[in-house]
C-alpha cells in the first residue's frame, strides 16, 4: 500500500501516548499545522494501548484493565476530533537538528521537514539484569500488560512477578482479575511498610484516592492469598528456558518454580532520539536514569526540538498530559500563533497541576527505588543482551585500564548489537562508574546513531522527499560538543 508522504509540516510530534496526544490536540486547536507520527496502529501509547477497541467493549478484558486505563479514551477522542494529522504505523528513524524527520511507513522511507519537533517517545521498562534474565520465559511485567491490552492475551501457566513500583502491583492485580496462575510477588524494594506509610502521610488528603488505590491492590492480592515476599539477589534458573527464580528473603534462600518470570523495577525515559541529537542530558539521581535537560516548556538544547512526557523524566500519564500541553503552547508561541503573554497565562494552570503531580512522584521515586537493577552485577550476568557481554568481561577491560564507554563498546561490542544499546546503556555505564569509583554523571552515556530504528538500505536508497543535498545518515547534529560519545 502506498501512503501519503508528507513533505513538510509546522509541528511534528513523535509518539501517540498521553503527552503526544495532548500536545497535538492543543497545537491543532491553536492553529498550528500539526502531524503526529506513531509506531502503533492506533493512538494511546503504551499506557492507553488499544483503548479505542477495548474500553467500549465492557467485557472481561475491560474489567481486568480497569478504570484508569479506560479514562485514556477521552484523550484519544479529543485527538481524533482535533485538526491534527495522524500518521500511524510510522517509525521515526531520525530527527535532525534542522527539523528533518525521517519516517518509515509500509516499507517506504521519507523525510518530512518540520519547523518544530515535540518528542513524546515516553518510557521503557528499566532493564533488570540478573543472572539468567535472557532465558525465554523472562519478560518485563509491562510486556505482559501490553499483551493484555493489545491482544487480550494472559498467562495460563505459573507466573511470578519480581521487582518494585506501582506497575508491578497493578499488573499483579490485573493477572489476578484475569484468573492467571500468579504464584507469588517478590518485592525487591528496600522500603518497609512502616517507612512507606510514614512517607505517604504528608500526601493526605490530597492523594487519598491514589493511596487508597494502591492499598486496594495489596488487599486484593492478600484476599486471593498471593504470597508477597521481600526478596533480593534474584537468580533465574533454567536450562533453555526459565524453570525457577531464587532470591534471598528473611535470611534464607527461597526457590519458586515458575514458567514465566516478569521483572519490573520502574520505567526510564526513552531517550534514543535526544541522545542521537546530542541534546544535553543530565543524570537524574532520584530516578536513577538519564534525561534530556529541558526548560519549563520541554525545550531541549537542540533549537527546534522539545520533549514532552516521560521521555523528559518520569512523571506518569497524568503529568504527561500537562507536559504535552506546555510543549504545544511553546510551539504555538514560537510559530507565531500566540504571544508570549498568552503562552505564559495558559501555562499557569498546567504548571499548578504538574506541581501537584510532582509531590506524588517524589513519594513514588523514594519508596520504589530500584534495587536489583542498580546493585553490582554478578560477573556472569549478561550486561549486553545482544552481543552477550557479561559484567565480568567489562570489569576485566576496566581493570586493564579502560576508562571510557566508547572504549568498552569498541573492544567488547557491548551496546553495538541490534537494540543499539537501548537495553544495556545504563548497566554498562554503572559497571564503568563502579570500576572507576565515580558516578554516572562522570562516565556519561551512549549516543545512539541514526537511524534510531532499523531501516533496510533499500528504503534509504529510495528515500522520499530527499534532495541532492540531503545526507540523512550523515547529517551532523548540533548540541553539546563536549559530549564524548
Amino acid at each position, binding site marked *: 500500500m502506498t501512503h501519503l508522504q508528507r513533505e513538510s509540516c509546522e509541528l511534528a510530534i513523535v509518539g501517540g501516548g498521553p503527552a503526544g496526544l495532548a500536545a497535538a490536540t492543543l497545537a491543532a486547536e491553536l492553529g498550528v499545522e500539526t502531524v503526529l507520527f506513531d509506531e502503533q496502529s492506533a493512538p494511546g501509547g503504551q499506557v492507553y494501548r488499544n483503548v479505542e477497541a477495548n474500553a467500549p467493549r465492557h467485557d472481561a478484558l475491560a474489567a481486568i484493565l480497569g478504570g484508569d486505563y479506560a479514562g485514556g479514551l477521552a484523550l484519544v477522542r479529543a485527538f481524533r476530533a482535533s485538526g491534527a494529522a495522524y500518521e500511524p504505523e510510522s517509525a521515526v528513524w531520525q530527527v535532525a537538528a534542522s527539523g528533518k524527520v525521517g519516517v518509515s511507513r509500509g516499507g517506504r522511507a521519507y523525510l518530512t521537514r518540520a519547523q518544530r519537533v515535540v518528542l513524546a517517545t515516553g518510557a521503557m521498562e528499566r532493564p533488570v539484569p540478573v543472572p539468567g534474565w535472557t532465558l525465554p520465559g523472562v*519478560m518485563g511485567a509491562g510486556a505482559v500488560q501490553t*499483551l493484555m491490552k493489545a491482544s487480550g492475551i494472559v498467562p495460563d501457566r505459573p507466573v511470578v512477578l519480581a521487582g518494585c513500583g506501582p506497575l508491578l502491583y497493578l499488573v499483579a492485580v490485573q493477572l489476578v482479575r484475569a484468573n492467571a496462575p500468579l504464584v507469588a510477588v517478590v518485592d525487591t524494594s528496600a522500603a518497609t511498610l512502616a517507612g512507606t506509610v510514614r512517607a505517604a502521610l504528608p500526601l493526605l488528603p490530597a492523594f487519598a484516592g491514589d493511596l487508597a488505590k494502591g492499598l486496594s491492590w495489596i488487599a486484593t492480592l492478600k484476599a486471593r492469598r498471593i504470597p508477597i515476599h521481600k526478596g533480593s539477589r534474584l537468580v533465574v534458573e533454567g536450562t533453555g528456558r526459565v524453570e525457577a527464580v531464587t532470591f534471598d528473603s528473611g535470611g534464607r534462600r527461597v526457590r519458586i518454580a515458575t514458567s514465566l518470570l516478569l521483572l519490573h523495577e520502574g520505567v526510564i525515559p526513552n531517550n534514543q532520539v535526544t541522545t542521537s541529537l546530542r541534546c544535553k542530558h543530565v543524570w537524574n539521581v532520584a530516578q536513577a536514569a538519564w534525561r534530556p535537560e529541558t526548560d519549563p516548556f520541554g525545550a531541549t538544547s537542540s533549537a527546534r526540538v522539545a520533549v514532552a512526557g516521560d521521555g523528559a523524566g518520569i512523571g506518569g500519564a497524568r503529568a504527561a498530559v500537562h507536559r504535552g500541553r506546555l510543549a504545544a503552547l511553546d510551539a504555538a508561541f514560537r510559530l507565531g500563533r500566540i504571544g508570549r503573554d498568552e503562552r505564559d497565562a495558559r501555562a499557569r494552570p498546567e504548571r499548578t497541576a504538574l506541581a501537584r503531580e510532582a509531590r506524588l512522584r517524589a513519594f513514588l521515586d523514594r519508596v520504589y527505588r530500584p534495587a536489583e537493577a542498580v546493585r553490582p552485577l554478578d560477573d556472569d550476568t549478561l550486561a549486553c543482551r545482544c552481543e552477550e557481554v557479561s559484567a565480568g568481561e567489562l570489569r576485566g577491560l576496566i581493570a586493564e585500564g579502560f576508562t571510557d564507554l566508547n572504549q568498552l563498546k569498541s573492544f567488547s561490542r557491548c551496546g553495538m548489537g541490534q537494540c543499539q544499546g537501548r537495553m544495556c546503556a545504563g548497566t554498562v555505564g554503572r559497571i564503568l562508574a563502579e570500576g572507576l569509583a565515580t558516578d554516572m554523571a562522570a562516565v556519561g552515556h551512549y549516543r545512539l546513531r541514526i537511524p534510531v530504528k532499523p531501516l533496510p538500505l533499500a528504503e534509504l536508497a529510495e528515500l522520499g522527499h530527499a534532495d541532492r543535498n540531503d545526507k540523512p545518515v550523515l547529517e551532523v547534529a548540533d548540541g553539546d560538543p563536549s559530549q564524548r560519545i
Partner: protein
Amino acid sequence: MFRRLQPDDSSATIYFDGRAIRCRPGESVAAALLAAGVDRFRTTPVGGAGRMPYCMIGVCFDCLVEIDGQADRQACLVPVADGMTVRSQDGTGRFGIQ
C-alpha cells in the same frame, strides 16, 4: 504459556516455521506466536542461545524473526496479515533470500 480472553476473532492465519497459527487480524506477530505457545523466536548470533520477546514495545530486539523473506523484523511491531510466512531466525538470519 498464554491464553486468549477473546478467542472469538481469530480469523487470520500465519505460518511459523511451516506451522499454521490462527490469530487476530492486526495484532502483532509476537503476540500471535506467544499465544500459540512459541517460546523460541530466534537464536543469538554470538552464543546461539534461544530468545523470546522481553519488552513487547520495540526496545529489546529479542523478538527478531524473518517475515515474508525479510530477516531482522521486530515481531512485536509488525501486525499479522493473513497468509504471512514467519520463520524463526538463527543467528544473524538469512539475507539476500528473495
